[in-house]
């Protein structure tokens, strides 16, 4: 971490010395160019009236027409709202739950119990979304277990169809993410916690600090850098979190809250074969993601904490 920050002149000798490192990094740069930058050439579709028949080279250019269509389309505006809402709700819920879970787990003294809980809690991460959504769909259906319990306990008079009411959808999405990812996300925080110097805890005990004080003044500050970095990275992913669940659990009735940018791209780009419109929506999404990362990063920078770049 604390290497000298003095700028070194790049000499031939230095280059020779790092020959293998340079060759290896070149491999990754080339990989990046081929798989991340070359495909960006496809963005040109967004400014064309692209047809598979005419291809990239011969399709007609239409300027910003596709973007105009997007922003005059009420559905697209709703879709942006839904994507952001689901993304942020999911981010906040999974983030807080993972940290809280890691700290609680860290407080468990029995090694066996701790390991068992950890293993059990991160197992759902390995289930694919289609399975998780299947379980949710059955559990929350009109004759599913949730309704049976609620009716059995006389909390509800008649079963409700959870997927027929727009109000329930976002919380269901956030809940599904929490259920699936909490255990997994907690692993990184647990690792960060173990790297905290045990002397600090000892010192706190001597000063009369209880568990709560130790969590507040040692554990949390200790994993703060990890939290910040993960937060910034996850903010960049906010718009990416919402394809599988809305796609698998959405239906015509709650379209207005369940459709996201990715689903919009699928509907128009693939189903209606308007690749140009799909690309335009995709570009918009990428730009928003970049802006979000920049904002998060600069906020972190200003508050003097860890940051990505």
């Amino acid at each position: 971490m604390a290497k000298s920050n003095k700028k070194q002149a790049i000499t031939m000798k230095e280059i020779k010395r790092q020959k293998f490192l340079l060759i290896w990094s070149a491999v990754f740069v080339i990989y990046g160019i081929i798989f991340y930058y070359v495909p960006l050439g496809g963005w040109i579709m967004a400014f064309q009236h692209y047809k598979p028949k005419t291809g990239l080279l011969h399709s007609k250019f239409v300027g910003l027409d596709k973007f105009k269509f997007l922003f005059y389309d009420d559905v697209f505006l709703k879709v942006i709202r839904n994507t952001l809402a689901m993304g942020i709700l999911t981010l906040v819920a999974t983030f807080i739950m993972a940290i809280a879970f890691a700290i609680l787990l860290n407080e468990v003294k029995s090694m066996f119990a701790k390991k068992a809980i950890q293993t059990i809690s991160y197992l759902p991460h390995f289930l694919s979304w289609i399975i998780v959504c299947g379980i949710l769909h059955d559990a929350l259906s009109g004759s599913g277990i949730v309704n049976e319990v609620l009716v059995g306990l006389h909390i509800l008079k008649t079963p409700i169809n959870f997927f027929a009411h727009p109000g329930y959808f976002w919380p269901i999405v956030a809940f599904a993410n929490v259920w699936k990812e909490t255990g997994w996300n907690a692993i990184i925080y647990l690792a960060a916690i173990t790297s905290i110097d045990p002397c600090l805890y000892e010192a706190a005990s001597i000063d009369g600090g209880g568990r709560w004080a130790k969590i507040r003044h040692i554990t949390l500050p200790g994993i703060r850098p990890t939290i910040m970095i993960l937060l910034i990275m996850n903010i960049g992913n906010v718009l990416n979190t919402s394809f599988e669940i809305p796609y698998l659990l959405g239906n015509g009735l709650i379209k207005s809250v369940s459709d996201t940018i990715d689903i919009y791209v699928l509907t128009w780009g693939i189903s209606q074969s308007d690749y140009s419109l799909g690309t335009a929506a995709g570009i918009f999404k990428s730009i928003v993601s970049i802006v979000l990362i920049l904002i998060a990063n600069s906020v972190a920078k200003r508050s003097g904490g860890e940051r990505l770049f």
Partner: protein
Amino acid sequence: MKFRKYFVTLMAAAMATGMLTGAVSAEEYSDDQIKDYTMFIAMPGSEKNDGNEVKEIIAHKIGGRVKEIWLTGQTDAEAVGTIIASGEYPEFINGGDAMAALYDADVLVAWDDYIDNYPNLKEMYTDKEWDMFRQEDGHIYWANVFGNTYGMSKATTHNDEAFWIQAKVLEWAGYPQIETLDEYFDVLEKYYEANPTLEDGTKVIPYTMLCEDWRYFCIENAPEFLAGYPNDGSVIVDKENMQIVDYNTIPIAETYFRKLNEEYSKGIIDIEFGTQTYDEYIAKLSTGAVLGMCDQWWDFAYTVNDVFKQQGLDIAGCNYVPLGLVAEKGQENRWHTYGDTLNNSSGVAITTSCDDVEAAFQFLNDLLDQEIHDLRFWGVEGVDYLVDENGLYYRTPEMRMQVADNEYKASHMCDYSYMPQWGGTSKDGINAMTPTEQTSEFFEGLAEPLVKCFEAYGAGNYPDMIHSVVEENAPWFPMYSFSNAMTTETEGGVAWTKMGEVKHEWLPKVVMSDDFDTTWAEYMEAYNATNPEAFLAEMQEELERRAAAAAE
């Protein structure tokens, strides 16, 4: 294992050829001469097992074998869009409503140069009908495989839409005349009150509706029929004024949805109707717990009736009987389509990925050979059907039970159901092309409650239950073949897509609403905002084009 499978196949093939009388006797193709094709079908379906017996027999006779890949979990447009984006095509494709996208992508082989060499294929349509398949560039790229009657029609089913009701409900109610929605729901309500559960304790669902993807017609298009018009699908054609009418906004639509809303709040309509998938819907119907629904026969009957037969639910009177409901008592209806429906917007196509186009056409052609056609739909003689002294095909009760078994269907039967086929009379002049249309088979296979029900209403078959007007299809019929093929290239096409989205969202909402009038007004506002006029104008133009073309 491999040897055994091979042996069984060979035995089956040998048995079949041994017993077949007439034209083809020896196997014509050896294993390494058989060409393997794949076919994508933009519909959900059941896969055949490898080594399916009839498939192997057909392969050895005509030298081709097709692996059918069905739609799973996606919409047809999504699946076809993904195939186009990937650039890899199966040799055969039946893209449902997404055929236009395939044409746009320029990946289909034009039929024009080939069609004359393949008499069985050519025979499917008249020249005038073939012309209807021509796309903008003047070529034919696909042929619809359904709705073709050879010789005299033998139709005994109502292969159309209707409000369906279980035979046992009608029996319980003493076979009343049911003509209107009010009467229909009245019977359902009364029966449900008296029988809230099945014998095994399953809760009865008096009425359910399917709203998933394109199958939302089950909730959406009843107003056109209630108003007495035929299945033009996306619009009503007012013949007198030659005017396109939007059935979504006619007063009958509002009355219909108001009735549904009432029934929903009474607990008569399934609470899951708005969110259930097609599979869930079929599973629900298969339990026998659903008393009624509005649907097309082909959308549920093939699967559900076979399950009923296997489970003995047909004897319990669970089979569905169609009712030709109308808005006003005594009004005429057109739920049943008597003539053939030519839907030129979809069909089977050969893609440019096929390296031997001629062999592919030959294969399609040979599938229509009467002997092969019999194998596809009747099965193997002596195993799946018998022939009496007059040459009439028939099945024993055991055979009927066997062919209704899913396991058996996967391992033995192979109808290539989305390949060219005929309905109507067999070329032998005696039998029907398919067992479902064989009159004697139909009555033999009919469960007792259905027989009693038909007798009570004086009906000889399903269409008789409906009392539709018997008339020839109008030359522009069905208009849905035009709207199905619309793309977002045109203003009307964009409007059509958006109208669909709005209806998908609002129709179930309207039914579930606590305050019908407000929700209906909101729906109408959202609907009108999609610019339906642009869609209707393009439909009007097409109607005039079709009418003019027919007058020529």
